[in-house]
């Protein structure tokens, strides 16, 4: 099956600092791809690079098109939803307004309403808190809100940046259970960045390991999970 997203020789950085040194990876259509690595390895930068939020050189293809060098808004138009690190919630706005913004670029009111119902199916707590100010939500709820907002775009590709970050283990379990459901029901391709390797490898088909801006390991997630030496040296478990 052709990859939905493909990156080739991707370099990226901030100002004078280069963070990614020519990496290659792909996200399969309809699958989950995990991007693992320690802090500072360049995982967040990779997602930002895909979204046009940092300066890049190299190729990034979404489907048939090249998206490198395009502004973020254009890339979003093409069906890429990014749940950034830190959630990126609009704190001053209500849950409802946050969700409405998720579907900002869409015009199909009926479709949006349907998707909203489905999203409430995954995250019933958001329906309860619909009119609350987003900044008053707990960390876990904000993560749910961020994912919900991204889903409301109706994306082809969902980028998740460390959904487990800063959350209690039970909540993380809940969220990943929901991610499993989303992955099964929605048909959206997911690129998952995670420090928590075991959670990520549990849900992904493909995995890449990033170390100081270079990909050092890549392959089927199941294999990587089975390989004890990789687990011990790189993934810490």
């Amino acid at each position, binding site marked *: 099956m052709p990859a939905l997203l493909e990156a080739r020789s991707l370099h990226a950085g901030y100002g004078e600092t280069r963070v990614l040194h020519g990496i290659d990876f792909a996200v399969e259509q309809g699958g989950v791809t995990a991007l693992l690595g320690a802090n500072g390895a360049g995982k967040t930068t990779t997602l930002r690079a895909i979204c046009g939020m940092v300066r890049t050189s190299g190729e990034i293809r979404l489907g048939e098109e090249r998206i490198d060098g395009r502004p973020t808004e254009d890339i979003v138009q093409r069906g890429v939803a990014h749940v950034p690190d*830190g*959630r*990126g*919630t609009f*704190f*001053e706005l209500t849950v409802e307004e946050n969700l409405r913004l998720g579907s900002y670029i869409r015009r199909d009111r009926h479709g949006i309403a349907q998707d909203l119902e489905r999203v409430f199916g995954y995250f019933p707590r958001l329906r309860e808190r619909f009119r609350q100010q987003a*900044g008053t939500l707990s960390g876990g709820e904000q993560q749910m809100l961020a994912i919900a907002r991204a889903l409301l775009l109706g994306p082809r590709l969902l980028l998740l940046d460390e959904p487990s970050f800063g959350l209690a283990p039970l909540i993380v379990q809940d969220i990943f259970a929901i991610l499993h459901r989303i992955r099964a029901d929605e048909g959206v391709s997911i690129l998952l960045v995670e420090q928590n390797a075991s959670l990520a490898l549990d849900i992904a088909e493909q995995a890449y390991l990033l170390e100081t801006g270079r990909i050092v390991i890549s392959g089927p997630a199941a294999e990587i999970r089975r390989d004890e030496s990789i687990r011990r040296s790189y993934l810490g478990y």
Partner: protein
Amino acid sequence: MARNALLAILAWLVVACLPTFLLSDYHLFQLTMVIVYAIAILGLAILTGFNGQISLGHGAFYAIGAYVTAVLMYQYGVPYWATLPVSAIVCAVFGFLIGLPALRLGGLYLALTTFALAVAVPQLLKHDALEPWTGGVQGLVIDKPDPPFGLDLSPDQWLYLFSLFVGAVLFLLAWNVVRGRIGRAMMAIRDHSLAAEAMGIDIALLKTRTFALSAMYTGIAGSLGAIVVQFVAPDSFGIFVSIYFFVGLVVGGVSSIGGAIFGGLFIEFVPNLAEKVSKAAPGAVYGVILIAVMFLMPGGVAGFVGSLFARFRRGTKSVELRPAMIGESVANNVSAGVPGGAEPDPGGNRGV
């Protein structure tokens, strides 16, 4: 090195005296105003350029100095030269007093407040309670002083030399302050106040003192200006005086002592030239040049000249001239995605 510098300055001074004998009284009057404005702008440079406190209201100090001199001369017959020290002290005190609340403001908020001060000043000057001294809306007319010791000079020639002398002293003083420990402390506060505080600099004291010093300079300039122009009235001290000083500062070079002279030249002569085109032209010219400088030449003329010199002379220790460093970047004050959202950050020295 210091001796060479002093000799150079003396040489410049001698050269600067020459116009006294070469130019007409009117041109001398214009040059005298250049010196006056240069001193005023130097005051602003001390505060904004070297200490990072943005003031859009220095016209207020200029007005205070002018009125102190005018009132003393007109109402009490004090000789012109004796009014300068009084004016200096009065303005320093006002500067200190204004510097106190200014401690809690930074960047944009200080600019806003000083802007408000400048707008309010003419109204204050016209107030009835002060009228017995200030002459109200009509203002005061003062006599041009005669040269002392019966020197064979016209009053304009004498005033030029007098202002030149006062200016030279003030510039030397400023140059000394900036080069020394106090100057470095001032600039440390401007560039990174947190680090400066950690190094033991008493920020509050230094900032208010800098405000006082700056006010003193611009106040003395106001006094000189009053003597030279022979007239003070509330409507001559509106918001545009402050704005023009600001423009002169930026054009000359924000953190530059020499640049203040160019700033003075700029605001004395450009309006004259521009007004020939139309009454409205000076404002437009100022505005365009101000924006152009901000975009193209943030170091002003002095910065430009300095960079030319630096090309020819390696290892020149020059004070950083870019106003681009003054005040933290606006972007740093935007806390996107932080609970509570974008906060008004007055800066200042409140600590957390």
